[in-house]
């Protein structure tokens, strides 16, 4: 299952639409980094609203993606982590340390706009 990546101005929006295998996640990691480079993106929103399980592998891979994107000078924000998923992640001992999170797409966009404004000024 491929994760579609949409270009929205200087941002990229990636929406996870179904459960991802480890291979899907790794493929997404490669795709999003390339897209950030190609589009000279300033920010990435990863929408995980439809993700029903975030296990250790998924959360580690997403953290790595955010770190790589930061090294390119862009920001990542994860949006839409479901309450049940958040609860399970905490029980499992998984944190999204160092990765911005927001309630939904709208909040995520607001966060990125704010972040970029701060950098510009």
């Amino acid at each position: 299952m491929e994760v579609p990546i949409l270009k929205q101005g200087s941002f990229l929006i990636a929406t996870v639409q179904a459960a991802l295998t480890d291979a899907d996640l790794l493929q997404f990691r490669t795709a999003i980094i390339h897209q950030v480079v190609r589009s000279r993106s300033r920010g990435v929103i990863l929408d995980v609203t439809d993700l029903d399980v975030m296990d250790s592998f998924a959360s580690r891979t997403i953290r790595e993606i955010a770190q790589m994107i930061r090294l390119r000078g862009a920001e990542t924000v994860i949006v839409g982590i479901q309450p049940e998923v958040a609860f399970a992640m905490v029980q499992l001992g998984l944190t999204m340390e160092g990765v911005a999170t927001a309630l939904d797409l709208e909040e995520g966009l607001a966060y990125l706009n704010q972040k970029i404004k701060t950098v510009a000024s």
Partner: protein
Amino acid sequence: MRLENAAIAAVGDVSVDEIRVSITSDQDIIAARHQGRALAVKLDFSPGDATLIATAISELARNIVSYARHGEIRIRPAQNGERPCIVIIAWDDGPGIQDIGQAMRDGFSTSGSLGLGLPGVRRLMDDFEIVSEQGKGTTVTVRKWKP
């Protein structure tokens, strides 16, 4: 080696309702947690508990793929008197775990993964039992009780 010797009499029994998912690849991990969630919902677990169960299955199945390459996830309903529960058994005939005490500590891993697997699964579920023999394999049995 055995940790937390809980009385699990039915480990060897094959219940009619038992779901078995053979685990050999990362795709099977998704199939297993899918089945687990479906049974949890059928047994009327809350959406929150169903997610905890699916997440635990994901971690257990991933351990099979990472360490043993081949194994099985067995999922079935059970009961203690009136109180129902869901039982997950993660079985493999891999190399076994050398030091279970160490494997149960947060942050320990031999496959380069985060190593949060087993202690995390223990926190997600209510009962946790692990039996591992070097060269023979590992069986992890976990249960979640209906509140």
